């Protein structure tokens, strides 16, 4: 029963996210964090960030983090609820809009819409990252790691999986030598 209620909450949460995330799940990560950590108290902020990192290490689109969160909160039913909630509503919108694509793609209004929406997605990406950094980075070491990974991701073409693994190893040795303490 409890699992069923949880799964329904998961379904609702991700249905909302599905319809408000422009440019991908990253633009509404701060919303997801708010719901998962502050609203429902399903996990701590640190846990949430770790799960996001874990999903980035797996192949596939980065939206798989929703399946991971659903699984953690309510097992298989939760994973299914999260996946359907996140993928189905947006897919239905895409399905109907794309049927009329030939009528509007390339028109002036479409170009205006494209020009207007893409910077919003970018702004929301950066905003999600910044708000997480403000919550998570409580020491000089963590600020430096976050900034380095930002630069590597932003200005090189290194595969993200390598950046995450390097960050994990750097943190491990920093902790080993007493430079980085985990509270």
């Amino acid at each position, binding site marked *: 029963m409890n699992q069923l209620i949880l799964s329904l909450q998961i379904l609702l949460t991700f249905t909302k996210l599905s319809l408000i995330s422009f440019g991908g799940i990253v633009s509404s990560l701060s919303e997801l964090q708010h719901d998962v950590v502050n609203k429902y108290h399903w996990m701590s902020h640190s846990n949430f960030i770790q799960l996001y990192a874990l999903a980035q290490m797996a192949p596939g689109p980065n939206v798989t983090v929703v399946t991971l969160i659903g699984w953690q909160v309510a097992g298989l039913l939760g994973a299914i609820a999260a996946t359907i909630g996140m993928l189905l509503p947006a897919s239905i919108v895409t399905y109907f809009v794309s049927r009329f694509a030939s009528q509007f793609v390339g028109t002036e209004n479409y170009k205006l819409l494209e020009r207007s*929406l893409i910077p919003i997605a970018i702004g929301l990406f950066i905003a999600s990252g910044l708000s997480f950094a403000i919550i998570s980075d409580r020491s000089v070491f963590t600020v430096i790691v976050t900034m380095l990974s930002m630069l590597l991701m932003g200005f090189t073409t290194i595969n993200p999986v390598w950046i995450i693994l390097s960050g994990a190893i750097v943190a491990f040795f920093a902790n080993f030598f007493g430079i980085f303490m985990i509270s």
Partner: protein
Amino acid sequence: MKPTLKELFLGFLKIGMLGFGGVAAVGRHIIVEERKWLTEEEFATYVGMGQILPGPNYINVSVMIGNKYHGKLGAFVSAFGIYFIPAVIVVILAILYNKFSLIPEIHVLMVGAGITTIGMIIGNGIKMLTKLKYDLNNYLVILFATTLIVIFHFRIAQSLFLLIPFSIIINKIFKKQ
């Protein structure tokens, strides 16, 4: 070349499985070069639409390609194909995480991975920005978005009510050619 349902499924399955660190690069390679499902131009249009429609970009792209060739069923098969294996893998990772994440050494690695990922989220935004043509409008919109979310703690839907009209108006008035 018109793919069969099975070919769609297997093609997207491959994109999902090989897409380490994101599916964008491998997706373009398989869809445009290897399978020739779309021309370069069509692909750019689909990805552009995937970005401005709500929801995950690549799922949207898979829905559009599937729909182009086999309607509703094609859309479902394509989205399922790209998502299925990665979803199974994240669940396996979750099981491992739950088993081992309390071991101090593993815990440090995971916390390190987490703080690194935060930087990558910001870096990804910067990378997308550097790919756009230089345009003051973009910077204004990005600054407005970050201010609303980071400083005033707006929720996403609330911020969209301000950001979408703002961005459309300034892009309409200050049009860069």
